[in-house]
């Protein structure tokens, strides 16, 4: 907890995202972007925690985030995703989707693509709630229940699924290159296969009966069938989308809405969640043996053999710790990562050993020594 660094930024932060680094260089991330919400003038901002940024470090606070540049943003920033090293996509409460370019040589931001009213009602704007990209493709979802597909380099819309959902779609993620997964406000996960022309989901999974709204979703970075979601009651659910229509495991995590869930991108035995209750949790699955838990196999091999999506090539026994079917004590450890906090933690992002999160208390927390 000592390595946590708080900075007050005079704007309520809705999203924080690390700028991607190339995996080959094994670099730690240095630059992150934030989006604000509920301000008269909202902004997206770029910050640096590096010591050799272009900003002079006057005060000796090592690692205190320094503002690189900022740009006005119309409406609340409801989601933020890096398209590549210097382009970032925002989802706005005005229904607009915008791509900004961060010019690193002179630290400025410019708009390079803007789709106004990407999400809308017949006579009003509908907030765009979430965006996911796999360059150059961008998929957005909104309160209007639409799924829209854009390409970064094309002005028009590639594909729209109208009425994809009768309620609000809160989040979207890629399952595979042609498949996406959405979560909605009545507790359902819907799989959409873009290879099919039909405008109906290929599969619907749901929490039985409770209809608890789901707010966030993330896919296991290596095992594409494992998905984690977080909902209004603060529960963390892990799903195996190949398997059954109900969650694989349910874990009590927070006492209020879980706003984001993220697997660690390179060490998926670790997972991070943040919530309206003002807490940020670090989840770690503990393996019994020396072998990394994702290599432990065979416990549920019958389940695996039924799988249609199991990767070919002899690693059939791969089974994730998240699905080891045993979420009893000792297998899962959780730690609070923030000092006592009363206002909502709206967003988090983790990359390498660095974690950044933003709160309604107008603070950004950066931890550069996440034990993963």
């Amino acid at each position: 907890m000592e390595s946590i660094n708080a900075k007050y930024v005079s704007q309520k932060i809705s999203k924080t995202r690390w700028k991607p680094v190339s995996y080959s260089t094994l670099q730690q991330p240095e630059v992150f972007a934030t989006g604000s919400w509920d301000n008269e003038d909202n902004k997206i901002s770029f910050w640096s925690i590096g010591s050799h940024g272009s900003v002079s470090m006057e005060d000796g606070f090592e690692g205190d985030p320094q503002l690189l540049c900022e740009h006005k943003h119309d409406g609340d920033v409801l989601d933020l995703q890096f398209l590549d090293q210097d382009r970032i996509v925002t989802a706005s409460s005005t229904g607009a989707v915008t791509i900004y370019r961060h010019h690193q040589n002179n630290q400025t931001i410019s708009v390079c693509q803007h789709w106004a009213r990407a999400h809308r009602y017949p006579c009003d704007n509908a907030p765009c709630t979430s965006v996911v990209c796999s360059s150059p493709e961008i998929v957005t979802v909104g309160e209007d229940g639409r799924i829209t597909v854009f390409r970064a380099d094309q002005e028009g819309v590639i594909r729209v699924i109208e009425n994809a959902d009768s309620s609000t779609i809160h989040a979207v993620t890629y399952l595979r290159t042609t498949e996406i997964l959405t979560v909605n406000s009545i507790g359902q996960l819907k799989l959409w296969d873009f290879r099919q022309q039909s405008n109906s989901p290929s599969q619907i999974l749901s929490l039985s009966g409770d209809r608890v709204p789901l707010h966030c979703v993330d896919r296991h970075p290596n095992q594409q069938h494992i998905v984690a979601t977080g909902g209004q009651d603060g529960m963390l659910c892990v799903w195996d989308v190949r398997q059954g229509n109900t969650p694989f495991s349910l874990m009590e995590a927070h006492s209020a809405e879980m706003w984001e869930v993220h697997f660690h991108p390179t060490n998926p035995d670790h997972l991070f969640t943040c919530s309206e209750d003002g807490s940020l949790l670090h989840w770690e699955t503990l393996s019994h043996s020396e072998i990394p838990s994702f290599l432990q196999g065979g416990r549920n091999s019958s389940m695996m053999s039924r799988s249609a999506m199991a990767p070919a090539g002899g690693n059939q026994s791969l089974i994730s710790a998240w699905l080891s079917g045993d979420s009893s004590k000792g297998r899962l450890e959780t730690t609070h990562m923030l000092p006592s906090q009363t206002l909502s933690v709206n967003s988090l992002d983790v990359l390498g050993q660095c974690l950044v999160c933003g709160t309604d208390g107008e603070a950004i927390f950066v931890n550069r020594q996440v034990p993963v």
Partner: protein
Amino acid sequence: MEEVDVEPAITNIPAASGGKHLGFAWGPGDILVYETLYKASGVKGSGSSFIHEVRKDEDIYSPILRKLFNESHHIFVGLQTIREDLPSKNKKSQFVSISKNYRSVIRACMEELQQVAVSTKDVKMAVQYGNQVSILLAIELIWNLCEVLFIDAAPAGSLLLHLLDWVRLHKADVDEKAREVLQSESPAEHPDYCDVVVSYVLQGRLEEARQMLVKQATLQPAARNMYKLMDTLLSKMPFYNPGGTQTLTDFDVKWRLWHEEVDRCLQDNSFASNRHLELICKILVGDEDTLLEHKELLSTWYHFLVTRLLFCHPTVKPTELHYYAQSCMTMFLDSRSVPEPLDNILLAAFEFDIHQVIKDCSIALNNWWFVAHLTDLLDHCKLLQSHNLHFGSNLREFLLLEYASGLFTHHSLWQLAVDYFDHCPEFGRVYLELQIEHVPLDTERKALKVLRICEQRQMSEQVRSICKIMAMRALRNNRLGSALSWSIRAKDAAFATLISERFLQDYCARGTFSDLDLIDNLGPAMLLSDRLTFLGKYREFHKLYGEKRFREAAKLLLSLMTAKIAPRSFWMTLLTDALPLLEQKEAIFSADQTHELMFCLEELTSSLNTTAPSTDRPMQEEDMEQTKVELLRLALARNLAMAIVKEGTMET
């Protein structure tokens, strides 16, 4: 009416000068002002179409001060959770550390403002930032003094040490000057050299003064003995050590001895040949006239007070402070006729009149932040108990409510206000209930956050109202699914009925259901309203029919009518839905069931005939209805025959 303490400030409304008449409306934090036509009726004047918003608390809109509000909110919440049952000794140290936290937040804010004030190019903004800095400086000065006098409540002896720290912290320009002097080529000849040494002595920083004196002593070898004597005097001055074993009386004796020694040196003119050293000696002996000659180095009367106490009354008791403070202020301010508000506030503090301090601060400062937080802290220290206002509940709550209401009018800081309201036991909840409904709900995410606030506090009325707003909005945008979800969340049966009605209308019009993902997954929420139950069950019938589970479908369909779940207006549709089932090769409805169906049809037709003569209906429609009934009757009769035959054969 009570008398006002000060004349209220006048705010000019720019567009409304020249004898125009204004109307106004109170808002939760602001006032709306508009021009009215004060003329005899019928006369049409060209009134201004502007509405002016008059804000009480401008500081809330400063981006840098927002950090102060956010950080202090965190400290405030921490303070409220300090347990009541802690021994008071532990509590005191906690309160002091919380007070220090507040002050460090003020300081951080002040430093940032100072930086921005220097770097900004806009002259007007620079002035504004400069003003804010001076306000924060004053706030910190007052807070620090209150911390020493009220919260820490230092006893005689340590009291003076704390006051010295207080003066040193707020008269830090000495250090800057000293740095300048020391960096020059020969410090002892720098024009400010004397001032620095004297300033050090005035602040009781004798160690630093001695180091400075050494520099001059080396230049004047002839006066070496004199410098040595001064050095000894300075080094021997006793300071009370609160942590040590020495009692206050011991210290007093020691100090008197030292004082006599200094006095002796002055009497026998030991420093007569060096004006500078003689001046220091006069200060050490506490000579008031000498001190007053150096007003520009002291710069304030309270510095004078502390210096005077240091060299004349180091064991001053808290209860004696007000006497010295009063006299120092009159002595120091003789040239200026009127003391400024800050002087009065500090004087009131020295007089231990907490309520006067808070009152004067409320009048002098343009924000509620300071008084609200200070009062809250003092209240936690049990220093404000006996005081009740003749309005509101008590002083602490009154000020917190004012501050929080101001925050609530801010488009972004309203979230902070919630916790402040929570800690106002008497009126906090009412305030919150009134204000929370005014938060604009632009997105569902914001609505969810507001809902969470209400739900955590069991504010069911507000929960219902928020859900209703969201449901209405969804309905307006033709998002029936969303609308239904919201009304289910609010447990709003009437609205759920309305939306179910819309779903059924849509079905009748189009022949298909929209939003199947929602209707198929209603679960127990279906029981919210009868109409919703019917909607869910009716959809279930279609599902069963689609899956060719005819028997179950038929049973469900019949029960919808016999159990009176289906509205009468929908019976015809249900009976029509039964047609294809009746026309199946195999008898699906049993004889009994067919009887019941027939009964339903008769009930429907008879009620239609009696209640609705419906002359205005087009003949065509009437005809169609008639044909439908005929068809149904035929199908029912055939089915009955089939069922009877079948049931008869099975028995035998």
